[in-house]
């Protein structure tokens, strides 16, 4: 049975530490973002909740070849 420590092919502690690191990185990134500043009541910050550039020529935001010099 996979639930037994003997047979389990992974370390529970390792999984928890890894996920905790990812969560900390996400939170750290968020805390230094304009969205967090805006949510904290700071004015004059430009947030980008709807990140979209409808004039772009590709999903990654690349411009059209015809517009390049």
């Amino acid at each position: 049975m996979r639930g037994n420590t003997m047979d389990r092919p992974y370390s529970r502690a390792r999984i928890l530490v890894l996920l905790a690191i990812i969560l900390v990185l996400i939170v750290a990134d968020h805390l230094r973002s304009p969205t967090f500043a805006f949510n904290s009541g700071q004015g004059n910050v430009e947030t980008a909740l709807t990140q979209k550039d409808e004039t772009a020529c590709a999903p990654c935001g690349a411009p059209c070849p015809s517009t390049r010099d």
Partner: protein
Amino acid sequence: MDDSAVLPSGIQQPQWQVDRFIVSTALVGLALLGGLIWLETAPFMVALFAVGTVLGMALYHGAFGFTAGWRNLVVKKRGAGMRAQLLLFGLTSLIMVPMLHSGQEGLVGAVAPVGLSLVLGSFLFGIGMQLGGGCGSGTLFTVGAGNIRMVVTLVFFIAGAVLGSLHLPWWLDQPGFDPVPLVNTFGISGAILVQFVGLGLIAWWVNRIERKAHGNVERGELLWKGQSHGVLRTLLSGRWPFTWAILILAAGNALTLGIGGAPWSITFAFNVWGAKALEVVGVNMSQFEFWTWDYPAMALKDSVLTNIPSVMNFGLLLGAMLAAGLANRFNEASRNRPEGRQFMAAVVGGLMLGYGARLGFGCNIGALFSGIASASLHAWVWFASAFVGSLIGIRLRPWFRLPN
């Protein structure tokens, strides 16, 4: 959980073992991250996070791998995976092409320029798929399911994507032309019809290869074979027939378009994660042209929780983890750790996947799946170039000690 109510009386269903630790951890992760997204962004982001989670479960339980599907056709001459992909593309284009041209404001399709950048990028991506062991979605859902080798692939996928973002402006200046939406030439119905003809021709070619090699065409993969388990148990613990995965993936992409305003994409998030990591160690990314373009600049500057591909990828990873826990198969593929040439294959494959995805305007999801769902010519060019690259990747696999 007990779904014996759906079984005929007298049939004993096999015992269902769940990895409670993995299931609990995934659920806690979903609740924590979902709560954070709810508190700090907007309800539509939570909805997209949920869509990503369901897509992760569908990819895992449906074993919906683009890479293995292509390889099975080439090596084993079996086309079930390939046919499932073609069905998925057809169904999704039937839903999304009219959606995109319904006149609703704010919906943008996955269209991209056609040129040297696209051809080379998708070709490299095709090689990388076979060496890295997965495509964009495949890499993510297998990482979520605890596959160590795919973690290596993902790390180098991210590195390659960032490198590609630095070079993409140069590649864009090479021969190429602006996006070609098929709807502009054929109209909505015509574009769908033209794509159906294209998909039908590929299906005919796939069936021909399979019949020639085996004398028949496998249909079983599309059908539900878990009758002894009942519907609910199969839904939660797998394995799903391809038809279930096709329906969920098509609905998921359409929902992503409806909620987020653009079709499903994966690899742009890898660019953002890699660029943010470089900024943390002091690299000024705004010195590179790609990161001065509006969308990448916005994504880099703001929280990953406001970036749709990132939020959906987080959901996908946790969804696949949940599914693997429910199937009691988390980390199952990692009993043999990658060493030597296999490790090298994950490194080289990951780099090619990332670099190729950036030059090719996305991966099998953002460029191929969402591109065909948007009736864009670039998706078809991507498909052909990536398949040729995949043929080379399959030939290279034995040298890297990877089974074919």
